[in-house]
């Protein structure tokens, strides 16, 4: 059962205030994937989970602030926006669902995935470092 919208509001805003587009429906996800197929794109699967999401969100923000930024960045909220999350996971069907997690696409192809267990127990700086490296690698910039 989804958490109260009031509870998750600040968790959504932690990403949206950083300019990350929120995808609320399956149509939003499909449209965003189509639009982002011309470049690099990061899709963040947000989550209430305090064990990992508490580090994932600031990690994403730090990576976007400090390194080369993907051409497109969006988020879906697992456990809240069920249809959008299912549609997003449908873009990488061979990977077991996990949240929070992050998928990085280049030219519409998945080239990097950061699952929840690679976020758990790590600092926001460590998460940001992983992302910054990937962003740089795929934008042709040295991290």
């Amino acid at each position, binding site marked *: 059962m989804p958490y109260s919208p009031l509870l998750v509001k*600040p*968790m959504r805003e932690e990403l949206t205030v950083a300019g990350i587009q929120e995808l609320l429906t399956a149509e939003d996800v499909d449209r965003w994937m189509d639009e982002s197929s011309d470049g690099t794109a990061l899709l963040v699967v947000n989550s*209430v*989970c*305090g*064990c*990992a*999401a*508490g580090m994932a969100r600031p990690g994403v923000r730090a990576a976007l602030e400090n390194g080369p930024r993907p051409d497109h960045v969006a988020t879906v909220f697992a456990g809240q926006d069920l249809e959008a999350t299912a549609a997003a996971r449908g873009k990488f069907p061979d*990977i*077991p*669902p*996990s949240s929070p997690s992050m998928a990085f696409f280049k030219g519409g192809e998945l080239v990097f*995935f950061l*699952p*929840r*267990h*690679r*976020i*758990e*127990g*790590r600092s926001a700086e460590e998460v940001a470092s992983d992302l910054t490296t990937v962003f740089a690698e795929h934008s042709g910039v040295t991290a």
Partner: protein
Amino acid sequence: MGTFHHGKHELHGITVVVDTDGPEIWVGRCDDILDDKVILRDADGHRDGDGGHGKQQWVERASKFGVWAKHKRLVVPRARVTSVRRLGEVG
């Protein structure tokens, strides 16, 4: 926003590898570790040698992307458990 541990084991909510003294090995989200059992959520397991893969090979594969949730809740008797470690620390 803090984690809702509710007095559970410090690994509550963390994805762990639970090895046993038998052929089974499990990966799942730790719910709790008690005197007599380890409780996992959204877990999957492997029997040593199945599909030609040993325990270590299976865990290394799981460490890349995670596991499919084949057991919503799984209880492993503590007496059978030889180790519990974070999946994120594998590989």
